[in-house]
């Protein structure tokens, strides 16, 4: 797989126009502020983060036990559980279930695991008609793009973009750009598809070992429509979604949507404990796809605690600027940086360098994943396996020499002043050379260095 060129992708977004990037930034920061308000309203918030982290670490360090218990309990409730070691097995299993039920029209609610496995393309290539029912996912499906955010898949698009897309794909009036009317148009477009679907596919936010139940959180109610009408429900669940007990949900439901969007919870928190009525079936595809291997990575296994709230993305200054598509992966933002390379170190080698290491992600993570620290460790790993960018490699090599030598450092300070003076703006802010330059002026470099000033003003006295 060829390397994802994050800087170039980011530049494409930043330089698109003067609307997309600032709007993206504003909307995500707004979500972050709402998260802060919601969190500050709960005195036990920080303790809840500690407990949620501990429950996840407990589960992951005893994962064999809890997987076994979950499978036993779900099976008792009449659910058929399948096992997939990777994306290929996952997709094939889903397809085989659909085929044995002659199901060719399916509706699905949002599942990051199904995205990760690129299931949509696999099924469509085999003649399955598949409709995303989460509005953001549907927008992305119609645009042929990956989700750019794990909670708000189309947040990089403006209302005008969606108006244009819907006019082109579902026949709305191209001049209709009221979000309410566009949402209504999609509601009316999706309704008949729910009614005639042969099967409904969902993911899961949590799976409970104690009862074999799994939980799906949505705001639209689309997972419930997906599961309550067709006679067949297939849920794709990653092994890291398991929690030991029902009571754990109290903690995680309180944390999830407050961290994601600043709302107390999602509008629908749906629990599935078995097939709906006689004549209907429920299947779970319990999927590994690199998770067990990640569990064995000493520095990185804690990324498996992630509950996919997206708080780290909303707060990340780099993500807010570059947009999620820049990461070229199912998981973008800070959490993507530490998960994606476990799938392909070479393809995603530039991701760990796409961070300011400000640490804000670790501060908002509801399960206290040491995201920023892991980004630093991934950088080391990329340098060690020689996958880091050569330009960066030489640049940092040079910086190391300069910083280690006082004389060279002084010379470099002076050179920076003259360098900045002499470099024309078209070069300093060139899109290809500096993707981050737009709307950002470099600070003026003074001719007098701090050292000069100190010697003149303080040293004698």
């Amino acid at each position, binding site marked *: 797989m060829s390397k994802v060129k994050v800087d170039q992708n980011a530049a494409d977004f930043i330089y698109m126009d003067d609307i997309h990037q600032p709007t993206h930034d504003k909307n995500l920061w707004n979500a972050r502020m709402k998260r802060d308000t919601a969190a500050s309203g709960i005195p*036990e918030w920080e303790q809840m983060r500690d407990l949620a982290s501990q429950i996840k670490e407990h589960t992951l360090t005893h994962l064999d036990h809890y997987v076994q218990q979950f499978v036993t309990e779900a099976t008792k409730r009449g659910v058929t559980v399948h096992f997939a070691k990777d994306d290929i097995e996952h997709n094939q299993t889903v397809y085989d279930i659909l085929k044995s039920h002659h199901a060719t029209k399916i509706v699905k609610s949002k599942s990051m695991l199904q995205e990760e496995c690129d299931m949509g393309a696999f099924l469509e290539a085999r003649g399955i008609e598949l409709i995303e029912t989460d509005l953001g996912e549907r927008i992305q499906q119609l645009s042929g793009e990956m989700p750019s955010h794990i909670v708000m898949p189309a947040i990089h698009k*403006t209302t005008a973009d*969606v108006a244009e897309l819907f006019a082109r794909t579902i026949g709305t009036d191209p001049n209709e750009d009221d*979000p309410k009317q566009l949402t209504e148009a999609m509601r009316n477009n999706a309704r008949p598809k729910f009614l005639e679907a042969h099967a409904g596919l969902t993911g899961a936010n949590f799976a409970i070992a104690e009862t074999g139940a799994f939980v799906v959180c949505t705001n639209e*109610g689309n997972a419930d429509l997906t599961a309550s009408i067709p006679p067949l429900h297939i849920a794709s669940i990653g092994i890291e979604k398991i929690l030991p007990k029902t009571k754990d949900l*109290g*903690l995680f439901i309180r944390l999830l949507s407050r961290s994601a969007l600043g*709302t107390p919870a999602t509008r629908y*928190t749906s629990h599935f404990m078995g097939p709906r009525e006689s004549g209907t079936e429920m299947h779970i595809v319990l999927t590994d796809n690199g998770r067990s291997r990640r569990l064995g990575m000493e520095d990185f296994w804690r990324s498996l605690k992630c509950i996919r709230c997206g708080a780290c993305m909303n707060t990340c200054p780099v993500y807010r600027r570059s947009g999620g598509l820049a990461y070229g992966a199912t998981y973008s933002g800070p959490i993507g940086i530490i998960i994606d390379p476990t799938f392909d170190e070479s393809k995603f080698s530039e991701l760990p360098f796409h961070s300011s290491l400000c640490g804000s992600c670790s501060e908002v993570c509801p399960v206290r994943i040491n995201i920023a620290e892991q980004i630093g460790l991934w950088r080391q790993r990329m340098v060690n396996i020689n996958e880091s960018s050569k330009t960066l490699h030489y640049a940092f090599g040079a910086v190391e020499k300069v910083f280690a030598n006082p004389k060279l450092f002084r010379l470099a300070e002076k050179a920076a002043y003259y360098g900045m003076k002499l470099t024309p703006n078209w070069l300093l802010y060139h899109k290809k050379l500096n993707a981050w330059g737009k709307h950002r002026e470099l600070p003026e470099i003074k001719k007098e260095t701090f050292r000069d000033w100190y010697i003149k003003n303080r040293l004698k006295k």
Partner: protein
Amino acid sequence: MSSLEELLAAIRQNLPAQKVDYPEIPTYEKQGANLKDKFIVNLGLSGGESYDVGSIDEAKEIMQQKLPDTRVTCSATSEWEGSKSIHDIAHPRELEDVDLGIIRAEFGVAEMGMIWLTENSLQVNSLGFLSQHLAILLDPDLITENMHTAYRKIDFQASTYGCFVMGPSATADIGAYLVRGAQGARSLTVFFLKQQI
């Protein structure tokens, strides 16, 4: 395809050596909280409305004023008779023409303004999601404080499906504008009323 044994073997091969204990989880109950008041405020945050009523007729009248164009009503509770009988439903999709669905909630959660529904209260699960609008009956004495106390109340063996519903369906996926009435109910009205036996 893989087997459970293969999956477990892959996990065991990679389990972190240092084990972490399972913690005690408090229920964070606060002394003297007025649960009904909290419920009303939090329901309002998600766009739901609530009324104290003395009878089903009073609730019907309020809904008639709010939604005068309602034609098809369907009720999952014998207290309120709808125009369409839920007992005659052969397939869940037959509820697609329902303007107003009426359901008695099993309990409410003050912290979130949520109500708990299962197939026992829904009769046909799709009633909760195909109905254009929802009227929910809730016994004000059946409001629990928060999610911790809520999960203590639920018997997962007693149903195959259960859902916490918090106000009407919503999305902000287009330009981050909040729109109510995404795929599920466009509005949700709670009536505080004890079940008449």
